[in-house]
């Protein structure tokens, strides 16, 4: 929503010369905004009415609420950590040494989006050794696969915005080894990409239902669906709460990241793109 209004605002920024056009553009802007607002807000309002405000007072004390949310948060954290440890060095390496493979990797990373999660989880459950299948931590490992396309794209966009090769060589020539270069030079300049990836991973894990339910894990979305069967209004209240919490964190990350990125001349942080750095001439 925020992105939508912003885009519309920017598209109409240069004032057209003719007075008739000047009037017509804002009208259309408001009409489109209104349609979008109705589309997105109406279900929310309906859900709010259905749940009733009283439900919000008691939802936090419902049985299983805390543990389900806590499980989802831990999954998000593990997924994030494993994804970053795997994908940051991989993406950087591809950019530096195997730029020819970038297209292939893009193709590979699209697979988890194309293959339905049901197929993925059932396949994994078939072939996994029992020890891992019985473990709670198999699910976040699966989430790593789901998160890979988003992480790759966000990191790739971040790396495209900087001259990784020259920065790495400059760092090397000043005496920094590979790890130091990655930690002190590349990562700080990849912050917007990393934050974009983080936003996407957290949103993905907190909302994933299919795989979690098939793996019999009571994550937050699974709990909401189960709870729905004996207290529907309470369950709806919980999902609205989850929505608000997620939304709040996404906004927080976006605002903080954009502020930091601006300080060093970077672009605005949005969910899918990292605006290229300004290039300064002479």
């Amino acid at each position, binding site marked *: 929503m925020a992105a939508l209004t912003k885009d519309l605002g920017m598209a109409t920024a240069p004032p057209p010369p003719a007075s008739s056009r000047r009037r017509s553009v804002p009208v259309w802007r408001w009409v489109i905004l209104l349609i979008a607002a109705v589309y997105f807000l109406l279900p929310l309002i309906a859900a709010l009415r259905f749940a009733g405000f009283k439900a919000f007072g008691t939802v936090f004390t419902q049985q299983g609420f805390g543990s389900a949310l806590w499980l989802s948060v831990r999954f998000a954290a593990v997924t994030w950590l494993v994804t970053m440890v795997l994908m940051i060095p991989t993406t950087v390496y591809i950019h530096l040494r195997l730029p020819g493979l970038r297209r292939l990797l893009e193709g590979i990373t699209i697979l988890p989006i194309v293959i339905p999660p049901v197929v993925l989880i059932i396949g994994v459950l078939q072939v996994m050794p029992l020890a891992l299948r019985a473990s709670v931590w198999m699910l976040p490992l699966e989430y790593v696969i789901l998160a890979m396309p988003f992480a790759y794209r966000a990191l790739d966009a971040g790396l495209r915005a900087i001259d990784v090769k020259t920065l790495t*060589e*400059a760092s*090397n*020539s*000043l*005496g920094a080894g590979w790890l130091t270069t990655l930690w002190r030079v590349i990562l700080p*300049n990849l912050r917007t990409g990393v934050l974009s990836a983080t936003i996407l991973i957290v949103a993905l894990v907190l909302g994933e239902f299919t795989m979690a339910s098939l793996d019999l894990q009571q994550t937050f979305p699974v709990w909401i669906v189960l709870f729905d069967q004996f207290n529907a209004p309470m369950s709806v209240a919980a999902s609205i709460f989850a929505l608000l919490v997620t939304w709040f964190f996404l906004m927080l990350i976006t605002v903080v990241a954009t502020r930091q990125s601006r300080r*060093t*001349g*970077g672009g605005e942080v949005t969910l899918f793109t990292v605006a290229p750095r300004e290039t300064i001439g002479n």
Partner: protein
Amino acid sequence: MPTNEIAGSETTAAKAAAGAAWSGAAGGAHGGTSVSLRGLTRVFGATRALDEMSLEIAPGELVALLGPSGCGKTTALRIVAGFEFADSGEVLIDGRDVSGVPASRRDMGMVFQSYSLFPNMNALDNVAFGLRMRKVGGGDRRKRAAELLDMVGLAPQAGQYPHQLSGGQQQRVALARALAIEPRVLLLDEPLSALDAKVRLQLREQIRTLQQRLGTTTLFVTHDQEEALSMADRVGVMRAGKLEQVADPAGLYSRPATAFVAEFVGTMNRLPAELGSAASTVTVLGATVPAQPGGPDSGPVDALIRPEDLTVKAAEGGNGIVTNRTFLGAVTRVAVRLSGDTEVSVDVSSAVALEMAPGTAVQVSLPATPVLTAPRAS
């Protein structure tokens, strides 16, 4: 538009004291490093980027590698830096082969063509980065980085981030950063080519002044002959992975070893000529003059003569007609069409050129000095 470009070069002289103190430390540490490139060969697919290239650089010397793009000059520099590896041949630093040493251990300061400052660090932290990698303590590090920034005239910009600096300022910070580690060798990879003409000129002088003051052995890669000739102690002209000639700028200009060097450095006229019987003389414009040794022995040849070596004077019934005049300040370049449709350029003092309006009949004649010959261009 930043205002510090001009101030930077003005303050250079004022920073001499600080620079001298610094050079004492640097000189004491190394006392100049020699670099030898021996038989370097590097093949990329079907192209030989470097073909048995050898070059000796004396301690404290600035050698420029000059050549058209794709001639292998950047490959040579990157092999010295440790970013590329030669298929055969070796790089010796102070007589020691560094082929197996990674870039991070070579102690070489490098300034890149593209802006290479770390965007997440301000100017001071950029300069201090190499010192930090060498485990120099915080206070000492900042003090030395500040000295270096002062030396390139950018002390007031210490707290600014790269995106707040102009291109010229960024390259000066990059230079300070490269020099901060007291490198054994300074490598400059077309550091000025992204800058506009005026800034380029100032930075050129500043780099040369600093390099001489610190006595740092320097390899400088450029495609700009003016840059190479004005800055370097010696210039190596490269073509297709080979060094055609290495000489001091004056020698390169006045005694080019090959036709390629002659035509790549400065402006050169090609005049149809005829070899004498022993190929030791050549007849050009009706005059027979000695031929410079090393030219072709037979076949159709051209004589290569610089515009300032030819003389021209207005003469009814002369051998050419003025077609154009280009005012260059003290001299004017006069274009003359000779009989046989050969165009030559002749530099004459601007006062003399006044009487040579286009259409004037003139007589062009050559010097009596030996001329360079080359197989005739078809």
